[in-house]
């Protein structure tokens, strides 16, 4: 196996991990601050992708499309927070799961109704549609490098926002004691809406970025949502740092597992059987990773609840 191929797959895994972080960050923030488990986070990812594809088709500008994904997902997030989710903060998890499941049904079918059942395609502009030569001679798609860069910039921005700004102080205080910061005069209702909109915008951006690699279709959000759940369970619910580490772990394990396991299996059985056994094992690898992490630390790597 050439080392270049392994390096390329590792980069793919890292890129996948960065995307998962954008999804997982919103989920873990919303859970940490509001105590809400939000299954409809995948729908925000989908909404971001659809609006990006729509705006790209209308204007031809990829930058505007990314901006549209951020704005549309943030707006959709704020609307569902104000109309529905706000009523669920002091309900038990079962009600939250069910209500957000109901939102998925409404948002998915609503999107199908507006945009139709056929997948949309988000084409890359020429300046992103090439390969870059990395040190060592590896040719790697520019677009995937851009995804990694945007993801890391967003992650850095989020860390700064939480660690350095007034809003970040309020968010951290809200995680610790929401009655106290409400008593200190912070408008907690507005804070919750802002936190939710930030998480939604990150999910929408991830949807638009991934939508340009794959197709944009109804139901694209839920598989990613469940991976994001795995990420935050591994990282520890409520921890942004845990979400980052969990996301990279899951992205790497999944991508490298799909690449390496069939190769490893072919040393003990014939090639066609090895391919199917290897891919079946690879599809389970991240869940096995999760089970192992939980067996050692039931609250995840950085969880303290």
């Amino acid at each position, binding site marked *: 196996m050439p080392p270049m191929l392994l390096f390329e797959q590792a980069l793919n895994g890292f890129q996948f991990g960065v995307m998962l972080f954008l999804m997982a960050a919103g989920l873990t923030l919303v859970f940490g601050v509001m105590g809400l488990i939000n299954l409809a986070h995948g729908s925000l990812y989908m909404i971001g992708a659809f609006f990006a594809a729509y705006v790209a088709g209308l204007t031809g500008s990829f930058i505007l499309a990314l901006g549209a994904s951020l704005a549309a997902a943030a707006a959709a997030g704020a609307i569902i927070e104000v109309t529905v989710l706000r009523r669920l903060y002091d309900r038990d998890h079962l009600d939250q799961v069910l209500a957000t499941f109901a939102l998925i049904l409404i948002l*998915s079918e609503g999107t199908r109704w507006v945009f139709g059942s056929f997948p949309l395609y988000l084409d890359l502009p020429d300046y992103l549609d090439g390969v870059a030569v990395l040190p060592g001679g590896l040719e790697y798609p520019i677009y995937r490098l851009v995804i990694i860069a945007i993801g890391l910039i967003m992650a850095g921005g989020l860390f700064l926002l939480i660690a350095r700004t007034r809003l970040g102080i309020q968010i951290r205080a809200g995680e610790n004691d929401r009655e106290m910061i409400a008593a200190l005069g912070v408008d907690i209702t507005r804070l919750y809406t802002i936190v939710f909109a930030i998480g939604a915008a990150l999910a929408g951006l991830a949807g638009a970025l991934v939508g340009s690699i794959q197709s944009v279709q109804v139901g694209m959000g839920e598989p990613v949502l469940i991976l994001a*759940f795995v990420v935050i369970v591994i990282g520890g*619910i409520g921890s942004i740092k845990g979400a980052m580490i969990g996301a990279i772990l899951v992205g790497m394990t999944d991508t490298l597992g799909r690449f390496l396991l069939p190769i490893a299996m072919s040393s003990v059985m014939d090639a066609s059987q090895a391919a199917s056994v290897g891919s079946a094992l690879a*599809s389970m690898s991240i869940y096995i990773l999760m089970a192992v992490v939980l*067996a050692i630390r039931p609250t995840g790597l950085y969880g303290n609840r």
Partner: protein
Amino acid sequence: MNREGILNAVLASSLVLVPLWASLSGEIFAITLATKIAILALAGVGLNIALGQGGLVSLGHAVFFGLGGYAMGVLASHAQDFVPLLEWPFALDGTKSMPVIWITAILASSLAALVIGIISLRTSGVYFIMITLAFGQMFYYFTISWPAYGGEDGLPIYIRNSFPGLNTLVPLQFHFICLALLFAALVFSARLKTSPFGLALNAARQNGERVAASGIRPFDVRLWAFVISGAITGLAGALFADLNRFVSPVMFSWQTSGEIIIFVILGGVGRLFGPVAGAMLFIILEHFLGDFSEYWQIFLGLLLLAVILYSPGGIIGILAGREKSHV
């Protein structure tokens, strides 16, 4: 009889009488709908033991439903292709016999519930929800990528499996097999609730520490409840596969888990007949709203949202009033 008792009697008798009427008037499709209601209600009765009695919000019951389905699919496909299931260490053939398939489905889903339970019951609350969901996805992707039994395309079974003494190809007879199993599960569930085990389970839901202080390990009680719950849902999966004569990875999908929860919640959590009322409403809505609009799930979502926000007791809560307290 109180209002909930009357409502339960109405629900139960409608599952007996409507198919009888349908059979006499030749409305075969109505029998199939009733059978589907009975089977999905059975899956809900299983989940309700974990969810309603034990307070365990499992978003992964599709695992058991799917394992039941594949128990039927694997056994029946070997029987229909005349390929032995095992040649070594001993010869074992597939089967078309329902009772054998049911036992296999129950064993397979109990075993899966035991393993998943041991791992996921170490956690609670939102972790438990997410982990059960993740295990569901694990089985889903595994069946998609494992090509031996149809992979993503699923596995058709050409002729419905047989039950000694009955002709399962007659829709009414198959319906009554499913209905008998549903009633048996309801009786079992009602008896479980008032048994010492059920009381311990209910207590563990309300306050695990107190249960532990009185000398019962809440983990064990929850684990067995989870296993029983998974076994019943697995049996429902085997029947569902027999109804459709088809199994596919969709049975393992997280939407299936969500739908089984919907039956329980729409009907009323913890109510004995909650899953029956919920499954009935779901299938009726699917059938009639599905004719009315391709996008019927929007209405299902709105209804579900309304029930959760404004009527946490579900349909039975609306029709029969608050559950009387046991204290």
